[in-house]
């Protein structure tokens, strides 16, 4: 095998695949990237066994072949090279890398030992722009759980049926849902799937926003294929909780506030909040919002801001971090928060026209009596 590729193209592709390589692995081959050179293309592949990524880049292939090399060593090496053509040649354990006056010999592992990628048929797949998947994922993934108490909540629910395409994520304390009209064009009715956020995060990393993707899935896995490469991921199996049921429909108290000002005020209050609960208290009454925090052995803080508020006065507690996270993904100048009671979910939406695309729920914290 022998190929030549520009250093900058090489490092760009390499770092995109190498980031999924686990830091520690009992299987040494998992720590390697697979380099396959064929005709005028180099394919770089990596896997953590749940998630597999292949990126294709143009290269001058002098002799086709496949090798695997340690991902971290190779990345560090290529990054340190000058911006000149890099030549890689050799087989299995004896691979040399040359660039200008530098020359390395790297120990690889046999390419035959590299795990095979899932076989999914992309023929019946659905076509989606990469930018849409990325936007849906970015607005929701943060809300997924990262504890292993309920594995199903570690994933993002992707609903592709019907005339809307939406993603939903929750950790049981807060929830985010982003929906857009389903892409038109030929598509086969597919299932709703639960995708690990790490897989979705690869989309923006590998594909451009305008890249057209074909998404294929079966019972256990999902594949995203585009011009630049393929991402395969294991799906999270099991029934997703009935989130529709917990979206409040009768929240009769409505707060509208400037997003930046509310965010800034919450950040200030959060400083004095308990490290465990991050509790802040929000009191709303007659177009005034009072934020208040009191933590034993730490201190107190309060701040009042003018807002637009309709409804009976209410006192409600929240984890400040949950509110701040949600506000970060609200893409409008104004935010609308509707409430029902101190122990019922708050509904957070962007103000203005795009109000229907995005919604978040935040469950309150009990206010100690």
């Amino acid at each position, binding site marked *: 095998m022998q190929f030549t590729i520009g250093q900058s193209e090489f490092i760009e592709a390499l770092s995109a695949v190498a980031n999924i390589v686990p830091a520690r692995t009992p299987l040494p081959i998992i720590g390697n990237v697979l380099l396959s050179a064929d005709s005028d293309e180099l394919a770089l592949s990596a896997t953590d066994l749940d998630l597999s990524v292949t990126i294709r880049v143009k290269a001058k292939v002098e002799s086709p072949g496949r090798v695997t090399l340690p991902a971290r060593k190779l990345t560090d090496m290529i990054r340190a090279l000058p911006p000149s053509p890099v030549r890689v040649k050799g087989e299995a354990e004896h691979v040399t890398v040359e660039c200008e006056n530098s020359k390395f010999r790297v120990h690889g592992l046999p390419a035959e030992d590299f795990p095979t990628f899932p076989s999914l048929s992309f023929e019946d797949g659905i076509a989606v722009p990469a930018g849409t998947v990325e936007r849906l994922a970015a607005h929701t993934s943060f809300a997924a759980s990262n*504890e*292993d*108490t309920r594995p199903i909540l570690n994933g993002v629910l992707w609903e592709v049926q019907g005339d809307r395409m939406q993603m939903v994520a*929750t950790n*049981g*304390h*807060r*929830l985010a849902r982003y929906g857009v009209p389903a892409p038109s064009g030929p598509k086969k009715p597919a299932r709703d799937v639960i995708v690990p956020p790490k897989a979705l995060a690869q989309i923006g990393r590998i594909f451009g926003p305008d890249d057209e993707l074909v998404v294929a899935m079966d019972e256990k896995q999902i594949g995203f294929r585009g011009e630049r490469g393929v991402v395969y991921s294991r799906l999270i199996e099991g029934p997703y*909780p009935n*989130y529709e049921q*917990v979206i409040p429909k009768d929240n009769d108290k409505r707060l509208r506030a400037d997003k930046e000002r509310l965010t800034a005020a919450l950040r200030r209050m959060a400083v004095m909040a308990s490290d*465990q*609960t991050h*509790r802040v208290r929000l009191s709303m009454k007659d177009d005034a919002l009072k934020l208040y925090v009191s933590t034993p052995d730490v201190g107190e803080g309060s701040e009042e801001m003018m807002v637009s508020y309709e409804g009976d006065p209410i006192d409600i*507690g929240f*984890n400040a971090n949950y509110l701040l996270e949600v506000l970060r993904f609200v893409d409008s100048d104004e935010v609308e928060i509707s409430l029902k009671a101190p*122990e019922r*979910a708050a509904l957070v939406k962007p103000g203005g026209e795009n109000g229907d695309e995005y919604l978040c*729920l935040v*469950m*309150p*914290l*009990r*206010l*100690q009596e």
Partner: protein
Amino acid sequence: MIPAGGRSVEARRVDVRFLFGYPLLVSARAILHVDLDAFFVAVERLRDPSLMGRPVVVGADPRGGKGRGVVAAASYEARAFGIHSAMPIGEAFRRCPHAAWLPGSPDLYRRAARAVRGVLQRFTPAVQAVSIDEAYLDLTGTERLHGPPRATAERIRRAIRAETRLPVSMGLATTKAVAKIASDLCKPEGFLEVWPGREAAFLAPLPLDRMPGIGPATREKLWQFNLRTLGDLARLDPQLASGVFGDYGASLSARARGADERGVSSDELPKSVSRECTFESDTADIEFCEAMLWYLSERAARDLRSHRLTARTVTLKLRYRDFTTITRSHTLATPTDSERRVAEVARELFRAAYARRVSVRLLGVGLTNLVAAAPQLDLFSAPRELAWERLIASLDGLRDRFGFGAVRAGSSILLAPGGLASRVSREGMHSKRE
């Protein structure tokens, strides 16, 4: 005997250490163990003074000698007949049929205990209540404020007398264990001070089981090595002690010499909560055992909630009739204060652990890994869990007013009318604060 007063303070300053080369005078610790004498009986006598001077027994219904419960507390007059707590009520009745037999009034006892604690806390914030009728006070460094600790102890006794009319015994020493042994030795209404440096000499002549933590099983083992007194144990070569009894042996002989590093922790929050009970007769009735587990879980979860805590680890304790004891723990992903979850875990642990075809003598449910109750509400469990929470809150309210037995869960119905009293011989609760 050295007379009281100034020299008492002087004598406590024995521990000379060096700080940056300068001698530093450090007061020995002054720990007071306050123990209410025959507490339940004393409270009953406040309510009914005609009980004064008579043998009084608080406990299960004796039913003319046929009762199957146990004695919860006995007055000193009753103790003269050989009656002691945890004795089967029938046997107690045969020993002294003419005693006054009372069923007990836990709420009244709790109120009295709170009043006593209020008095203690006026003297020092370092009050550690270890059970309803016992507390440790750290009087170290209170000389400038209250005078010598022995005088303070006397003032505490007078204050408790004046405000609650309850008798107490007190032990003053440099460690908790020695202070407790001292107060045990001088009951009732006594005061005993063990001087700093005299701990080992004080302990030496005492029988082994005076030391808290040495029960019948350990005593039996020690007897086999011809060890009869704490002095014998103290003289035991540490290497031999740990050779025979492991690390536990080394710590035993250190304790017999008066060593006890434990401090008085006024931290009100317990580190663990547990409930256990010994059956009056050993049982192999699985259903009955599981009903008992529900009951114990209810009690333990209740204790937890009263401290606004939640627990992550549930421990089952199972003792077979041959005293083989096993404990099994399960750690939950999210902490809980719900008896339902605790009971579910306890039941699973029991089903997995109960493997021998031997009947059960004791069951216990313990909760550890305690964290402050998280106030975060959950999106998905909201309706059902909130309903449970409301139910539990109402039950807690009812039980606060009318006692625990006022309402009973269906899952522990097997223990209902008389059942519990007749089949359970000893019920213990513990909130460990250290």
